[in-house]
């Protein structure tokens, strides 16, 4: 199998080189067929790398320890889920994963755009294939994930680092990789536009969505990383300005800048050089980030280890990227001249420009500070490091300036804001900000940056509120529906604008969370049983240390009783897990009591089994959950911004009265209902069964909590499954046979539902399919209704526009009061 894997890599390499040659030659000779064959070659590469991924996954699942990579990152005891995620657990595999994602993304990007962007496609294919070749080259020459042992194969693997055995680590790297790899697509289109000289805005239209999707995944990856650090690493924070974290943040800054400046190019045909530069820089930073983390140039807790040869290969590649792309930019400068000038500093363009400069400055600063130890060593010989305080000192004002622009930008008019419309636009948001400032001062908030952050957040919230409020009111007046339906219609008419506003709202919530960091309280104490310590409003009493065992690990847990404001609020159990064979690296299982206002976060830092004393690190983290909630809103906003306008067809014109209102209320109720059903237990890692029968039963009984989608209890992570596993263990320990255990579960749960495979009776099958049929039926019904609405609205469309026109004409005569507002709104959209 390993040979097959290596072969697919070699074949993909050769195919890539063909793709480049064929598409470039095809474009130059004007041979459609040659270009098509290049595109075909790119698809073939995607196919080959999919096969390579299948080979490595198969090797993990079938425990083929003759492959070094498999042996190093898994062992027989590893649960299946983590065997699959080990694919990207190490350096070689993560390179393969990168190449695989790039080939798939590249193929889709080409597939979607091959008709619309016929002139660009050959060069897009060539660029993607060239980047692809670099990663394949790395694997073939240096980091072959399919390398086998030349000597006799070991009997078992070394196992995956326990820190990586959790849910966040399973989804955090792929999210980040998708974000990183996705940035190659805009780069490829940008480069193709430069090469062909077709530098009108069509290439931007092709990449806007891609950039947005990649940007979203990048944000998602970063937030998951924060969540992982917060919940698993147990140092009480979520961001430590570690080089690896910074590597993910750098392209995020420039991609954010691009998403904003692209609007300016679309509206005002300015900033063309700037946009193409941002695309190049973003791509460069993704490669640079990978270089930093993979080559050991920068020291970090979680770099992959030093590797000189790899560092050289990356350096050469990065130099090539810079020379080629900026060479092309300079070559095409005459074509990139902007058609307009900045008219005024008090305009939306200027706000966008300021936002871009600040974001770029932030990227530069983070890059500089991250590389500072390496740079200072090269220059002075002394290795100087800069820590989080330096970053915080600089990033706080930068973040606040961006926050201000988030609020001010949408209030400014394109081209030039007159004093009159400044007054009209800024009045309410500034009032909001002022009110909050007064409250901040009155409450005696000591930290200036946090106080300012609260005030600016109010400013932005005021802006957003005003935008939605005015827009919805104008729309209600023109379409004569209820406010909520008007709101949906408003969002539907320009999803990108209002989706973007929602993203801003999410960012505001996240900033509030960051501001809360300043009010963090933390205490490190050693407690004997019965001793207590108070942190903020909380009183924590240490009761005992308990040591438990399950198949895979030893669990040491501290039991503490917690009081808030003198009232007992329950017991918490921070723990450490010592995995078998990895006793040297216990994992920290933080006990977190989440709250709207603050989290109580307790880590068991050490213990003495004999006197039952324990060392705790107790932290009160204010507003942390706002960060995660803010990200949720950001995700919804991105989804809306990405939607094609036709998705809203039903709501854009006249939906049945109150339809939107009813739908919204239902949607809001939905998560509450789901939440009510599912009660998550403390996070359990997958459990190892003790006997063969138990193991089989784990695969034959499903979790009945109602929200896990009937996962097998051996795989399900929820607390309910743990309870069911306990039942199984107990019954097996009592010496019951399989049939008896089946019967027990049928009796206990009142039906055959817990059994994964129904006892073979005809009616059972039918009964089982009912929920699925119900679900499918609901889906069909929904689609049907949606289509009917759209059709009706399509009929209604001409009618309603004509009535609008009539309104306008009437309004002209009768000086309808809302007219002015409506015209204003329309102008804001058009101009």
């Amino acid at each position: 199998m390993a040979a097959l894997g290596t072969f697919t890599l070699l074949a993909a390499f050769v195919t890539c080189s063909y793709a480049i040659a064929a598409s470039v030659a095809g474009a130059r000779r004007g041979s459609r067929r040659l270009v098509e064959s290049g595109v075909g070659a790119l698809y073939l590469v995607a196919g080959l790398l999919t096969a390579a991924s299948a080979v490595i996954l198969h090797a993990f699942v079938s425990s083929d320890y003759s492959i070094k990579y498999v042996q190093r990152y898994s062992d027989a005891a590893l649960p299946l889920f983590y065997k699959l995620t080990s694919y990207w657990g190490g350096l070689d595999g993560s390179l393969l994963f990168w190449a695989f994602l790039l080939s798939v993304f590249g193929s889709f990007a080409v597939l979607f755009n091959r008709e619309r962007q016929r002139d660009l496609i050959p060069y897009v294919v060539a660029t993607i294939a060239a980047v692809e070749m670099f990663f394949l080259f790395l694997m073939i020459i240096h980091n072959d994930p399919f390398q086998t042992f030349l000597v006799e194969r070991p009997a078992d693997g070394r196992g995956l680092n326990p820190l990586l055995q959790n849910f966040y680590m399973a989804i955090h790297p792929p999210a980040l990789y998708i974000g990183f790899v996705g940035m190659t697509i805009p780069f490829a289109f940008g480069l193709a536009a430069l090469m062909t000289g077709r530098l009108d805005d069509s290439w931007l239209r092709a990449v806007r969505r891609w950039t947005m999707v990649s940007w979203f995944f990048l944000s998602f990856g970063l937030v998951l990383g924060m969540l992982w650090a917060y919940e698993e690493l147990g140092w009480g924070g979520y961001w430590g300005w570690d080089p690896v974290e910074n590597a993910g943040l750098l392209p995020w800054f420039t991609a954010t800048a691009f998403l904003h400046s692209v609007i300016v190019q679309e509206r005002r045909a300015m900033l063309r050089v700037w946009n193409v530069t941002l695309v190049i820089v973003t791509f460069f930073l993704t490669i640079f980030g990978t270089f930093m983390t993979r080559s050991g140039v920068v020291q970090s807790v979680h770099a992959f280890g030093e590797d000189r040869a790899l560092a050289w290969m990356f350096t050469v590649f990065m130099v090539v990227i810079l020379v080629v792309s900026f060479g092309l930019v300079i070559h095409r400068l005459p074509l990139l001249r902007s058609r307009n000038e900045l008219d005024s500093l008090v305009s939306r363009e200027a706000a966008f420009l300021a936002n871009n400069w600040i974001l770029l400055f932030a990227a530069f600063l983070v890059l500089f500070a991250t590389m500072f130890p390496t740079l200072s060593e090269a220059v002075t010989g002394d290795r100087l490091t800069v820590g989080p305080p330096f970053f915080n000192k600089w990033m706080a004002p930068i973040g606040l300036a961006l926050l201000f622009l988030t609020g001010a930008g949408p209030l400014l008019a394109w081209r030039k804001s007159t004093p009159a419309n400044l007054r009209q636009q800024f009045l309410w948001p500034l009032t909001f900000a002022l009110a909050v400032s007064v409250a901040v001062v009155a409450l005696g908030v000591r930290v200036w940056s946090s106080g300012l952050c609260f005030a600016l957040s109010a400013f932005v919230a005021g802006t957003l509120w005003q935008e939605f409020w005015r827009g919805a009111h104008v729309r209600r007046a023109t379409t004569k529906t209820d406010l909520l339906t008007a709101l949906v219609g408003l969002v539907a008419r320009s999803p990108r604008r209002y989706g973007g506003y929602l993203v801003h709202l999410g960012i505001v919530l996240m900033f509030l969370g960051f501001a809360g960091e300043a009010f963090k309280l933390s205490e490190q104490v050693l407690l004997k049983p019965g001793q207590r310590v108070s942190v903020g409003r909380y009183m924590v009493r240490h009761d005992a240390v308990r040591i438990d065992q399950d198949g895979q690990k030893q669990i040491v847990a501290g039991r503490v009783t917690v009081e808030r404001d003198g009232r007992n609020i329950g017991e918490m159990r921070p723990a450490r897990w010592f995995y078998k064979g990895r006793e040297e690296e216990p994992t920290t299982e933080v006990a977190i009591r989440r709250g709207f206002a603050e989290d109580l976060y307790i880590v068991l830092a050490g213990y003495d089994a004999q006197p039952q004393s324990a060392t705790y690190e107790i932290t009160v983290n204010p507003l942390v959950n706002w960060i995660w909630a803010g990200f949720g809103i950001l995700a919804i906003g991105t989804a809306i911004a990405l939607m094609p306008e036709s998705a809203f067809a039903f709501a854009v014109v006249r939906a049945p009265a109150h339809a939107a209102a009813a739908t919204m209320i239902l949607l809001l109720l939905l998560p509450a209902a789901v939440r009510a059903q599912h009660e998550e237990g403390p996070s359990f890692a997958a459990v190892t069964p003790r006997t063969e029968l138990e193991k089989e039963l784990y695969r034959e009984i499903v979790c009945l909590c109602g929200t896990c989608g009937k996962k097998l209890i051996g795989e399900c992570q929820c607390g309910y499954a743990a309870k069911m596993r306990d039942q199984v263990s107990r019954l097996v320990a009592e010496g019951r046979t399989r049939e008896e255990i089946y019967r027990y579960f049928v009796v206990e749960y009142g039906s055959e539902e817990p059994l994964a495979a129904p006892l073979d009776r005809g009616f059972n099958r039918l009964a089982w399919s009912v929920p699925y049929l119900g679900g499918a039926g609901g889906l069909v019904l929904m689609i049907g209704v949606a289509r009917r609405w759209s059709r009706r609205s399509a009929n209604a469309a001409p009618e309603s526009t004509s009535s609008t026109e009539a309104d306008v004409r009437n309004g002209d005569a009768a000086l309808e009061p809302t007219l002015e507002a409506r015209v204003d709104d329309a102008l804001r959209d058009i101009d």
Partner: protein
Amino acid sequence: MLTPRGMRNKTAKIGLTSVVLAGALAALFYATLSEGTEYYKHVDEVMADPASWYGKRLQLHGFVVADSILRRRDSLDYQFRIESNGSVVSARYTGVVPDTFKDGAEVVVKGRLGPGGFEVERDGIMAKCPSKYEASR
């Protein structure tokens, strides 16, 4: 349209603004950098001339001397020695130590050196774990 003269005027304005801004930023940068930096040194480099390092913020790299870790009963006060290339320095610390902090471990400690030894600041012990993400080769 801008006249050539207007153009020159504009360029001068933009140029001046950027120079002033860049200057201000550079000054701020320098100021914060000198406060925020720490020297990254090995024990032997520092102990060659300890007095010259007194009071400076340091990240000291070395290995924990075997059997040197002492902890005061029922407290989080630690005392230990770290060495590299034959030079040894004693260190004091109060707080929670990482799991990987034990005899022979490779550590980086943050803090300041004084005549009485190295004072490690809070959360200032980073024990390196060679196989944090990559299993050792």
